[in-house]
């Protein structure tokens, strides 16, 4: 097994939080490919001339040793072990006639390529880490002198906006005045309801005014009450519920319920 490098302890701690699945890995390897890479390095040969067969054997031996030590291994490692065992058998057996599947040699070189690629990106990551980091190796201005922005407000408004605002204000005012002076009215509906209620209690001629007396508590209400009541009366006459008569112009208006609607129109 590789001797853990000083940083690997840190790695283990960090991984404890973020990558629990790898906590059980062996001596801080970053997965099976990383372990393979480490084993390959120990062959002390160029990755281009690596013996994948030897590598597979070493990996399998490593995994078996770990299992004997009852080390719990992440599934990734076992999958890789199984695959390498397969590859090993393919590499040892005579190659079957060329089929659809890639040959053992092709599989082996694909694995070697993956290892070289991981090695290359590791190297790149190392170079990136060695670059002069801002805030670690190089520094920006410690006390930036900000650009002072003098804000000068310029207001925009058009004559149209001005006139519209003025007209709206004044208009609201006079519209409001009209509604303020709106009088309380006795609606036709109110009159009709009142009359219908009263009709049932009567059986003789009565002046309309008598009926309306109780509504005329406020003098200002009188015109609206009279008008609405008269309209309602005429409507009920048309429906044959009331009879109405007036002896002369401006004389009191007499009403009488129609006992039998058939008599209507008299």
């Amino acid at each position, binding site marked *: 097994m590789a001797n853990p490098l000083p940083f690997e302890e840190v790695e283990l701690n960090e991984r404890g939080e973020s990558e629990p699945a790898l906590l059980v890995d062996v001596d801080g390897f970053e997965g099976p490919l990383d372990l393979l890479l480490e084993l390959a390095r120990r062959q002390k040969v160029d990755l281009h001339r690596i013996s994948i067969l030897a590598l597979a054997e070493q990996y399998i031996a490593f995994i078996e040793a770990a299992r004997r030590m009852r080390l719990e291994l992440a599934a990734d490692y076992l999958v890789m072990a199984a695959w390498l065992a397969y590859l090993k058998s393919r590499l040892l057996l005579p190659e079957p006639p060329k089929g659809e599947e890639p040959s053992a040699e092709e599989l082996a070189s694909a694995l070697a390529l993956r290892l070289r690629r991981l090695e290359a990106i590791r190297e790149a990551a190392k170079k990136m880490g060695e670059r002069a980091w801002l805030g670690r190796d190089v520094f920006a201005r410690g006390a930036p002198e900000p650009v*002072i*922005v003098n804000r000068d407000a310029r207001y925009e408004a058009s004559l149209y906006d001005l006139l519209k605002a003025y007209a709206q204000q004044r208009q609201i005012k006079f519209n409001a005045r009209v509604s303020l002076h709106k009088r309380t009215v006795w609606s036709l509906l109110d009159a009709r309801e009142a009359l219908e209620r009263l009709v049932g209690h009567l059986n003789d001629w009565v002046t309309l005014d008598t009926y309306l007396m109780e509504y005329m508590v406020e003098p200002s209400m009188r015109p609206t009450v009279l008008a609405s009541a008269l309209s309602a009366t005429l409507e009920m006459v048309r429906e044959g519920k009331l009879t109405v008569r007036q002896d002369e112009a401006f004389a009191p208006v007499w009403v009488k319920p129609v006992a039998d609607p058939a008599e209507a129109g008299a």
Partner: protein
Amino acid sequence: MQEEASEMMEGEAHEGSPEVSHVPDHGEAMRIAEALLFASAAPLSTEELGGRLPEGADVEKILLDLTELYAPRGVNLVRVAGKWAFRTASDLSFVLARDVVEQRRLSRAAMETLAIIAYHQPVTRAEIEEIRGVATSKGTLDTLLETGWIRLRGRRKAPGRPVTYGTTPAFLEHFGLDVIEDLPGLEELKGAGFLEGRVPSDFSVPTPSDAETLREDEDPLEDDLLHPLDMHQTEATEATEE
């Protein structure tokens, strides 16, 4: 030319080293001081710098040399509160300031108030409120004063002697009016569709006056008002339109 300058600076940077080998490279110490002063968030004292420079470095000399070196540049080494800091050259302060003209729209309340002042001037705040049917915030009048379109004219000869407001020549200029009487009257407002529906018979649009001379019912503003006025305008500049 440029190369020459580079060489010069470089030459300068390595000055001293061959003569006295045990004294740290003066140029290198200068470079370190430069970097320290640049990266520091606050000015550094001679002692602080000395503590960070190579053993035996002549801090005073380094600071003197740096001050001279940077004196003609766009960035100078200056003493602030007994410490040292790089600062942009004071004659270049203009490049670090930027004038931004912000286009702002008047709020509806301000627009309405302005319109009432325009038509009803000279008008008091209470009269504006009477027409609008709502209290006028100080901020609204401040904003309008800030625009330069309205001014305090005088004081109404009435209980409480309220201030009267009117429009300025800048108002006419902005709204493209020749004289204040060019504001459309009742018939024109109706004709242009600004007033809709039936206009009550007692409805009228006043004839505004923005004349410099006060009306008969106006008194001049007292001197004591000028100070609060100044204050108003200062505040108004800071306050942003709602």
